[in-house]
């Protein structure tokens, strides 16, 4: 869209220039039309970036990569898909506009090479009606930067940022990318964030209130997964089109709050407060249609799938950021849509399995279904609390957890006397109920005594001899690019850590609570200048900061070396436990 506007603008400017003196169109030098940069992505590949000026384009099949010294051999470059054009002479031709990045893997015949030189020849044209002769641009890449041994060691041993890992995997062909996304989705479905979706699906199948066959269960699950996949595909297309702060939109308090409310509503239905159903008139209309549909509540299940995709979204910020980063950079709408569709399908595979088995199991079930429903209801409430926790004050969170736990305890009859010859199952339920009750009481006390830690609700009662001095990490706030540059300059001689933070960012809070508080991390923090950009307000300055580092939003931790240059490939996107974070910090500290 903006490239169209700028092309129109360029055309107008060119016309004006032509009118002014009647001849040569104003053209950029090739180095300015095709801004080139290259960086070492990992010990085995180079990332080549082009910023192509609006109104200019490069040919996809005309790149040539030459490495020196002779021991360095480039592999097959991973070129993103371009826009296809019919060319009357060459047939189909693919061209690039905007920003592109190409990954060039390479091999080294011998270790210990300090640096390699890359020469890239490209060919491109301007819409104004000229082309450039093949143009060579060069870069030198220091291999020593990755530390001794990095060349020989396994690539997995070098700490690369998670976003890089995802993007690196996707450098290949279209189908490889789609297949990779499917695999990512499958892996994601085993994360704790996706598991709560299983009860939702099963809940819908139970809610149908009629015998559910294996086939029908599977089909309902398939419809659900389809709804989810289409939503993801739309997100992918949107990322391809705009590259906007998608994760920020999804993690906005209002959106999260709305999702939490939906979860509460679903939970209440599970507890039997009301029947969740469509208006009768609409139902009868739909039921005639649904007779032809495989599932009785196909549309409802589909809508749930759509909603679940939006709900899962914020939970999988790190991989999604990587995926959207890649798609945003490639600006390939087709790939964006297909890749995220495939990812959702991958995420849906376990749901399909559960859907099939739920459909097979449930018809045989009796009264236990009510217990299962209540259990699901409890889980849904827990997810609701989890969703709102990023922007809820800690005492309120604790109060909510306390309410949930005590409520569960009451339902489990923790405070009712057991009948004289109680069944073993009842006794077990009472044990669970009592634990929930005590935990709930602990949270309640925590809420009222000002505890600071959700995992230690009674820590507020401890004598505060240790003090709070060590609790607050000494981050300096930065709010704009100039601010950042000044701070990085002022840090001369020390490595710099820049942490992108927002109030709504769940993994940022987890990082603060679990990782930054670790003693080993704190020790290393003493030798690092710590900067934090709080981008909660999402001002234009914040957007500029994110854009410089090609981030869609927090979380993201960037490192700068002692001379103030970004240490490429060392980014941390998403939550990282202290053990791994310590090795990343060591890397930053030992970076020469």
């Amino acid at each position: 869209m903006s490239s169209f506007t700028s092309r129109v603008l360029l055309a107008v400017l060119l016309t004006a220039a032509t009118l002014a003196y009647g001849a040569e169109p104003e053209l950029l030098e090739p180095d300015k039309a095709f801004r080139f940069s290259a960086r070492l992505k990992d010990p085995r590949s180079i990332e080549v970036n082009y910023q192509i000026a609006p109104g200019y384009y490069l040919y996809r099949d005309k790149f040539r990569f030459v490495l020196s010294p002779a021991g360095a051999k480039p592999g097959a470059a991973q070129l993103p898909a371009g826009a296809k054009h019919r060319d009357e002479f060459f047939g189909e031709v693919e061209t690039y506009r905007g920003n592109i990045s190409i990954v060039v893997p390479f091999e080294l015949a011998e270790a210990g090479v300090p640096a390699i030189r890359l020469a890239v020849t490209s060919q491109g044209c301007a819409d104004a009606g000229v082309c450039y002769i093949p143009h060579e641009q060069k870069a030198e890449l220091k291999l020593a930067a990755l530390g001794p041994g990095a060349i020989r060691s396994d690539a997995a041993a070098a700490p690369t940022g998670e976003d890089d890992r995802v993007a690196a995997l996707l450098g290949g062909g279209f189908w490889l990318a789609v297949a990779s996304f499917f695999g990512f989705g499958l892996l994601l479905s085993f994360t704790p964030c996706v598991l709560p979706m299983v009860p939702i699906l099963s809940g819908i199948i139970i809610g149908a209130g009629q015998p559910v066959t294996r086939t029908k269960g599977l089909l309902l699950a398939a419809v659900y997964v389809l709804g989810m996949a289409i939503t993801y595909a739309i997100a992918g297309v949107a990322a391809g089109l705009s590259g906007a702060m998608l994760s920020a939109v999804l993690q906005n308090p209002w959106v999260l709050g709305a999702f939490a409310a939906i979860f509460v509503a679903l939970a209440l239905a599970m507890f039997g407060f009301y029947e969740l159903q469509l208006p009768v008139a609409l139902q009868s209309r739909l039921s005639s249609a649904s007779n032809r549909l495989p599932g009785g509540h196909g549309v409802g299940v589909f809508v749930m799938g759509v909603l679940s995709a939006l709900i899962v979204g914020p939970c999988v910020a790190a991989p999604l950021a990587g995926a959207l980063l890649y798609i945003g950079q490639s600006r390939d709408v087709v790939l964006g849509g297909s890749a995220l569709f495939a990812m959702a399908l991958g995420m849906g595979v376990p749901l399909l399995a559960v859907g099939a088995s739920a459909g097979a199991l449930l018809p045989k079930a009796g009264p236990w279904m009510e217990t299962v429903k209540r259990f699901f209801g409890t889980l849904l409430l827990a997810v609701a609390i989890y969703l709102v926790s990023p922007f809820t004050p800690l005492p309120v969170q604790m109060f909510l957890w306390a309410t949930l736990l005590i409520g569960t305890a009451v339902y489990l009859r923790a405070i009712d006397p057991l009948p004289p010859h109680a069944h073993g199952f009842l006794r077990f339920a009472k044990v669970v109920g009592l634990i929930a009750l005590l935990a709930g009481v602990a949270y309640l006390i925590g809420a009222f005594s000002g505890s600071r830690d959700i995992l230690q609700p009674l820590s507020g009662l401890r004598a505060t001899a240790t003090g709070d001095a060590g609790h607050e990490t000494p981050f300096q706030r930065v709010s704009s690019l100039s601010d950042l540059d000044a701070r990085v300059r002022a840090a001369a001689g020390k490595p710099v850590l820049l942490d992108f933070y927002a109030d709504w960012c769940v993994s940022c809070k987890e990082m603060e609570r679990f990782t930054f508080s670790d003693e080993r991390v704190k020790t290393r923090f003493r030798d690092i200048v710590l900067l934090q950009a709080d981008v909660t307000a999402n001002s234009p300055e914040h957007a500029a900061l994110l854009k410089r580092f090609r981030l869609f939003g927090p979380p993201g931790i960037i490192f700068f070396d002692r001379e103030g240059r970004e240490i490429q490939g060392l980014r941390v996107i998403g939550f990282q436990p202290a053990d791994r974070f310590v090795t990343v910090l060591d890397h930053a500290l030992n970076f020469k």
Partner: protein
Amino acid sequence: MSKVRALALFAAVAVASAMGGAAYSLWSRSGATVVDRTLSSQAIVERVYAARLADLNGASQGLGQWRGQVLVVNFWATWCAPCREEIPGFVNLQERYGSRGLKFVGIAIDQPDKVAEFAREFRINYPLLTGGLETMDLLRQAGNRAGVLPYTLVIDRGGNLVSREPGGLKEARLEGIIRPLL
């Protein structure tokens, strides 16, 4: 009355100088980015006449052999869409004015097999030369520092550089340039 006339004169001078200034600034900016104007026209023509490049049969051809004719030297490539658009016009002009001493020469920065295929398809009726690095050097020496294609030089019978045109040339415009020279 004279007051009004003086005012009109001042206004005209102001407008003219503003336009001239704007045009000059555009011209000089464009000149700085596209064409190296430090090379004299005479030096460019001498470089062109001195160049030797392979034709489609692989034989070396000196451009000096067309000295004394109205010479249109067109730098182009098959992968360059704007270059291809102007070629049918060149073919027409070569056909119309060839007998009166007009000579087009195409210098392709391209692979010879592609050029040969293109020449057949578009029935190119004038000599085509190809080359690698030395062609690019010639292009730069011919005053095209940014390496823009297409790039066309018009040299008259006396060896004077009449025109140099980066970007596509319309048949009618080129005809207007060459007709007075024939």
